[in-house]
């Protein structure tokens, strides 16, 4: 069965090949057929560029033209009322099959990632810390991480090919776990199985620390954490976010942003980024809510109203 790659529904029915022909040129192909020239890699590197992104879920439009750019070393906060499309943006970026991109583009360093499967996006350096990480019984944290790292660090790896050496892996895992205050037994537990809310979030941050992505999206990583867990997670992110990572923090809360001061704050309303400001905007929204934003953007506010009515 062949499915079109333009649709984000596509998973692995057809494999995309990304072939570096010579420096500065990237070829996309479908399967092993004739490659299609897509674009020249731009000289500007380490940039995640979202342009006019439209996304629908079950045929219903949720994102209606999102524009956003994140560069290495930057921390962006993404805020907005419930239902404004923040999590949809996160899932669409990492390639969840349920989130259908209807138009627009997302590029990392000039590569159109919408053509890629979720695993290929991970391999070029995109990471989402999930709001609700799933449980995978019987799969040990250490085994899972070793496979994940082997793929992300060797993007051309195929299943069944060798994993990164055990000794090296263990040493690194132990170091990262120490930094996050995770006990050694954690590595031998089954992935998220019986984890508390705080443990699940720390598990996400451990993955972030091990995978060292170019761009990390944190989807309400602070949600449901008590203040101790929140501190550990915030400090963890603070250690990891650096000049070699761009971070998009989706949050309702202030604490995470106090530890990880955003240079940019974006506000979403009814599927669009309606405002972009600096750190102060985040604090203002936190203190006063979204009524001022709605007043400044009556059209979007009206649209939001309609959506709420339609969904009731």
């Amino acid at each position, binding site marked *: 069965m062949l499915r079109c790659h333009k649709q984000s529904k596509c998973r*692995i029915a057809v494999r995309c090949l990304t072939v570096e022909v010579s420096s500065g040129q990237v070829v996309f192909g479908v399967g092993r057929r004739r490659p299609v020239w897509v674009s020249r890699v731009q000289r500007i590197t380490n940039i995640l560029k979202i342009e006019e992104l439209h996304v629908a879920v079950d045929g219903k439009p949720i994102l209606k033209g999102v524009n956003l750019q994140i560069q290495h070393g930057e921390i962006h906060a993404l805020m907005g009322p419930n239902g404004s499309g923040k999590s949809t943006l996160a899932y669409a970026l990492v390639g969840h099959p349920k989130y259908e991109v209807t138009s627009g583009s997302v590029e990392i360093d000039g590569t159109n990632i919408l053509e890629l499967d*979720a695993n290929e996006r991970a391999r070029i350096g995109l990471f989402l810390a999930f709001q609700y990480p799933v449980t*995978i019984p019987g799969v040990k944290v250490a085994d899972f991480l070793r496979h*994940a790292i082997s793929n992300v660090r060797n993007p051309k790896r195929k299943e069944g090919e060798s994993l990164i050496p055990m000794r090296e892996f263990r040493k690194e895992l132990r170091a990262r776990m120490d930094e996050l205050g995770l006990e050694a037994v954690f590595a031998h537990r089954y992935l998220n199985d019986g984890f508390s809310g705080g443990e699940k979030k720390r598990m996400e941050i451990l993955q972030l620390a091990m995978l060292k992505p170019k761009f990390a999206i944190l989807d309400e990583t602070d949600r449901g954490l008590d203040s101790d867990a929140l501190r550990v997670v915030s400090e963890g992110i603070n250690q990891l976010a650096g000049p070699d990572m761009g971070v998009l923090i989706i949050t309702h809360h202030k604490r995470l942003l106090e530890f990880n001061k955003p240079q940019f704050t974006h506000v979403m309303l009814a599927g669009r980024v309606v405002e972009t400001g600096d750190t102060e905007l985040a604090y203002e929204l936190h203190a006063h809510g979204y009524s001022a934003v709605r007043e400044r953007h009556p059209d979007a506010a009206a649209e939001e109203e309609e959506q709420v009515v339609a969904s009731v």
Partner: protein
Amino acid sequence: MKTTEQEIGVGDYRFGFRDSTDNYTFKSRKGLDEEIVSQISEMKNEPEWMRDFRLDALESFFQKPLPTWGGDLSHMDFQDIYYYMKASEQQETSWDDVPDDIRKTYDRLGIPEAEKKYLVGVKAQYESEVVYGSLQEDLGKQGVIFTDTDSGLREHPDLFREYFGTIIPASDNKFAALNSAVWSGGSFIYVPPDVHIEFPLQAYVRINSENMGQFERTLIIVDEGASVHYVEGCTAPVYTSESLHSAVVEIVVKKGARCRYTTIQNWANNIYNLVTKRAVAYGDSLMEWVDGNLGSRLTMKYPAVYLMEPGARGETLSIAFANTGQHQDVGAKMVHCSPYTFSRIISKSISKGGGRASYRGLVKVNNDAKHCKSNVVCDALILDSQSRSDTYPHIEVAEDDVTMEHEASVSKIAEEQLFYLMSRGMSEAEASLMIVTGFIEPLVKELPMEYAVEMNRLIELQMEGSVG
């Protein structure tokens, strides 16, 4: 003689090669009647009581109807089967003496190598007879008997007759009756009181011919306070017509003894595998069945433990993988005949590519068997929409004061699990395999390391080509 590999239909099945049958020492004619049964008994120089036992069993086999439940047996033609085939003159104690082509088969299956590394005793059964046997010397000196069942009858007639056919009478069911009539080979094990056999004893069972019926018969007696772990592995070549494997396994676990019986069966897709396995467990003993069922066209197998005295425990851990064209109708049976007895059943099944996996289980608590505990967990994983899974749990309790737990779950590989793993860089195939491996991990971790590795590898082979 040369080993030929069949090109068509072997597919992913690694053990589908076959040997020529030209040099076989003896091959009965096809079909089943008194003459064939008498001929088998005569060939084996058996005492009269055994011949009579066989002939009675044959009558019982003819009288019993085919089971109407379980899998589809309508294609079975009992007259189109060779009931006895002998491929070599005698059982050898050195691999060098085993006929070349048969030895090569076991080499390809990796048995002599495994024997060097981690086994303390091996029996290799090829068609109807055991062609090779070994047991570490010190175990023999301690009084451990590990021999093929025919030799058991010859060399230990009193011990043999005391137990043979007492746990599974010939008239128990149609296939037990068939086995009782035409049985050949299998293992006979006796572990004397307080002897602990640290490493596994292994039997390797191989069918080579088309339309072959293999009926090995195993009898294990673990005397008071002793322990043993017995492992059997099974394979067969791929043919276009069916072969039948119908074994009977009887086990006695005496006071304070432990027995673990591990099966890793990986039959070709054309084998009907209809096996009766039963153990009786006495006071404070433990009987464990660990059962990995891969391959075969139809497997019907429900290892049983009869818990006879207080403190007896029975456990069954089973995995079934039903792939295209396969039906695994497997489960367990626990019969609490005494108060303070405990049982646990963990059953995991995976169905894929149109395969069908059924759990069929019985937990029975007899009159006066107070304070019993039983815990049953069955989980099914269905990998695609063509595949099927059913659960048939039966619980019969004749006593009030008991604790029964039953949990069953059926799941599909969740899209969300798949996506989670893929978002961490794993391909869909790798992610699916990881989820399936995780699913069976509670069972695999019970296996000795070498078998756990083998089990995971077999599952990996089954999963190949599942994404496309």
